[in-house]
């Protein structure tokens, strides 16, 4: 039997004016198990807390009920005070007789009666309370960043700057991501490579950072502070340590007809390649789909030519097992496939290109050396049509995305402006539904494209692109001038919607991190915790969470790093002790609870149990990881046998409260 003390707070006149505090204290004093009661002007004051502590010592209390303001105000205060006097903090319950009683009722009799009932409910709960101790778990002081684009790079650098070790896993042979393919950046028009490549070098030189390029996350186990991850290092058939990145092999390889994915297939590379000059790590990679040696066993040119002896045709995938305290997802985006948009003739004409392809064509390191030339015949286009919102903001069309891809308005303005600047004799048309340019100096940028550079912005969508000889006939509407246009363009550029990288979905499953229907990762809270996944220890950086431009990506990446650092700084994680727990003797192992757990906190294991007839029986039972569980209680209701219960809000506790209220 508990020995419970009841403390009724006046809160000055806040409570005492409408609730007869003396009557409440006396009435509650008669409840079974209550050995002490008292009322006081301000329980939360130093003096009030001392009264609580003295009573605990003098009357050997095992639990306490404080009838006062909302537990959201002072529950922590009273629990801390009780703990100092030697009673477990979870043995203190609050009856909210201010916000939910004295402040909302005028009739003193009514309010007093209600306060007594609320006090009774709290006493009934304390009777069933048990001391709870928060579990502690150590933190591995190393972070994993999945994805080596600008988001991953920035997050890794920031974490490393704080003194923690970081590993970057990048599935391509080099880090850099989409930003490395971009020519100029809006709204300042500085060259992407000029600002990105120093960061890539910084990553490579940072002693705290390891880069696992051409690698993928294979398996993730564990929980916040204690992840253990298996990383698959794909065979690149080149010894990373020995290779000096001289690039001789990439010039001599006889297999020249490999589509160059870095230039989006606009030109060709060799079977052994370094994606681009500033690649990090600058190491060659053999493409096994095209290498003659790997396919037929006859060639070996690169091996003969390599002075470092780095070529290893027998290399196999290898695995690295590593422990991490935090995992950052920075898997980024891709433009969507446009093969369903026949009306834009993307698959029919090489002169209909995506905006990212346009970036490559205008990039000095691109297939045309930076001169704007049509892919079909290498001539200068004199009339260019840009089409916005291709695949964005669609609903009910069967393809495309419902969301706005956010970056297209700005990069289209950039493309249009740069074209007009470099080639003033080129006519540029931009077809738009809306021009959305919120952001610092963004709208000014778009207006400059119109006002200074004479880009024709036309409100209306392109209906069809018809290749006709060397021309592309673009049929579109001009909604403001109420006419249909037919433009004989030389080049059509489609601002394709962006979507999360395909690798994100399987990764989310591995991490038990939740995603929305578009495969973007969901945040722990859309406003207040935008860089964390609801799954503890998983953080979100960049476009894996939603479409973003570079400045936004970088600021989110740094925010994400701050959160990671905050976690890694701690030596131990103290959990919330009000977590779910499963009574193994009753658990059916039916896996229902696991399906409703938003945190992936529940796992199953086969355990041996001694049966009444003394035989041993193996049963599948659920176990909750207290470090991961956040204590929502969804599992407790899903569990048909009642094996799953929640500390601090147990079935019997809540039912005792119900009983006390309904008496």
């Amino acid at each position: 039997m508990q020995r419970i003390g009841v403390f009724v707070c006046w809160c000055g006149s806040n409570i005492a004016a409408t609730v007869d505090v003396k009557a409440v204290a006396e009435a509650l004093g008669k409840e079974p198990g209550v050995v002490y009661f008292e009322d006081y002007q301000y329980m939360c004051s130093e003096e009030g807390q001392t009264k609580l502590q003295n009573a605990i010592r003098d009357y050997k209390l095992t639990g306490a009920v404080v009838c006062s303001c909302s537990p959201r105000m002072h529950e922590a205060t009273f629990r801390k005070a009780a703990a100092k006097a030697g009673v477990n903090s979870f043995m203190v319950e609050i009856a909210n007789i201010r916000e939910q009683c004295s402040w909302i009722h005028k009739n003193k009799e009514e309010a007093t009666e209600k306060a007594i009932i609320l006090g009774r409910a709290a006493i009934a709960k304390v009777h069933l309370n048990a001391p709870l101790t928060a579990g502690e778990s150590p933190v591995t002081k190393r972070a994993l960043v999945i994805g080596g684009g600008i988001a991953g790079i920035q997050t890794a650098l920031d974490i490393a700057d704080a003194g923690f070790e970081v590993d970057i896993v990048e599935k391509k042979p080099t880090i850099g991501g989409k930003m490395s393919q971009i020519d100029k950046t809006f709204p300042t028009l500085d060259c992407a490579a000029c600002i990105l490549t120093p960061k890539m070098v910084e990553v490579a030189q940072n002693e705290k950072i390891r880069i696992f390029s051409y690698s993928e996350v294979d398996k993730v186990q564990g929980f916040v502070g204690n992840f253990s991850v298996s990383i698959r290092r794909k065979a690149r058939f080149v010894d990373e340590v020995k290779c000096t990145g001289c690039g001789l092999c990439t010039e001599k390889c006889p297999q020249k007809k490999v589509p160059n994915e870095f230039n989006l297939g606009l030109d060709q590379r060799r079977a052994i390649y370094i994606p681009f000059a500033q690649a990090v790590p600058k190491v060659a990679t053999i493409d096994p789909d095209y290498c003659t040696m790997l396919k037929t066993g006859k060639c070996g040119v690169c091996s003969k030519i390599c002075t470092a002896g780095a070529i290893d045709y027998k290399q196999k995938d290898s695995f690295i097992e590593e422990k991490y305290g935090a995992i950052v997802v920075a898997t980024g985006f891709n433009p969507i496939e446009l093969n369903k948009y026949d009306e834009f003739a993307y698959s029919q004409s090489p002169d209909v290109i995506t905006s990212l392809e346009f970036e490559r064509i205008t990039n000095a390191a691109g297939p045309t050396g930076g001169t704007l030339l049509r892919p079909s015949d290498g001539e200068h286009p004199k009339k260019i049509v840009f089409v916005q919102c291709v695949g964005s903001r669609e609903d009910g069309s069967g393809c495309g995305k419902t969301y706005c891809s956010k970056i297209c308005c700005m990069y289209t303005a950039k493309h249009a402006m740069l074209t007009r600047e470099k080639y003033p004799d080129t006519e540029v048309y931009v077809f738009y539904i809306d021009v959305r340019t919120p952001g610092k100096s963004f709208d000014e940028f778009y207006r400059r494209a119109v006002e200074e550079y004479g880009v024709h912005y036309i409100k209306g969508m392109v209906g069809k692109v018809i290749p006709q000889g060397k021309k592309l006939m673009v049929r579109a509407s001009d909604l403001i001038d109420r006419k249909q246009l037919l433009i004989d363009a030389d080049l059509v550029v489609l601002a394709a919607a962006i979507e999360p990288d395909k690798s994100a979905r399987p990764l989310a499953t591995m991490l038990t991190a939740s995603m929305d229907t578009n495969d973007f990762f969901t945040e722990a809270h859309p406003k207040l915790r935008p860089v964390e996944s609801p799954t503890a220890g998983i953080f979100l950086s960049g476009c894996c969470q939603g479409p973003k431009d570079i400045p936004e990506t970088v600021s989110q990446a740094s925010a994400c790093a701050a959160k990671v650092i905050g976690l890694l700084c701690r030596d131990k994680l103290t959990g919330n002790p009000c977590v779910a727990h499963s009574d193994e003797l009753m658990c059916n192992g039916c896996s229902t609870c696991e399906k409703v757990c938003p945190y992936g906190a529940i796992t199953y294991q086969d355990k041996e149990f001694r049966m009444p007839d003394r035989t041993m029986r193996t049963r599948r039972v659920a176990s909750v990881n207290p470090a991961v569980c956040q204590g929502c209680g969804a599992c407790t209701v899903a569990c048909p046998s009642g094996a799953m219960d929640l500390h601090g809000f147990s079935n019997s506790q809540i039912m005792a409260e119900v009983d006390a209220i309904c008496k």
Partner: protein
Amino acid sequence: MQVNEEKFEPTIVAFCCNWCSYAGADLSGTNRLQYPANVKIIRVPCSCRVNPMFILRAFQRGADGVILCGCHPGDCHYTTGNYFTRRRMTLLFSMLEFLGIEKERTRLEWVSAAEGAKFAATMNDFVATVTKLGKNRRLEDLRCKK
């Protein structure tokens, strides 16, 4: 038959989730928005913690109405809890109605931490509705009546 002059005062149990609705209830207190003292609030971490057993137990012990409040769909502190609540309570309430329990005695409402006024209005309305229905007898004494 004796006419009972005294006004019927229903017992109402309200389950409120810690993060939105309980805070909403606190806010209606802070703003001194009145609602009847018949409503007694039980704090739960999330609306999805509310087991149908609790609701039945309340009716068994003499509650005349049970209301469950949680964060608005999409705003759950635990991201998905209230979606499960919504399905569970839809089915449970429908079942109670199927058994002949007046559907007005059960309610599920979404109240955010900022909706003190909504909380008070909801409670006022719910108490009025249940008062009109009168004492809950149906879930209490099945056999005794026979």
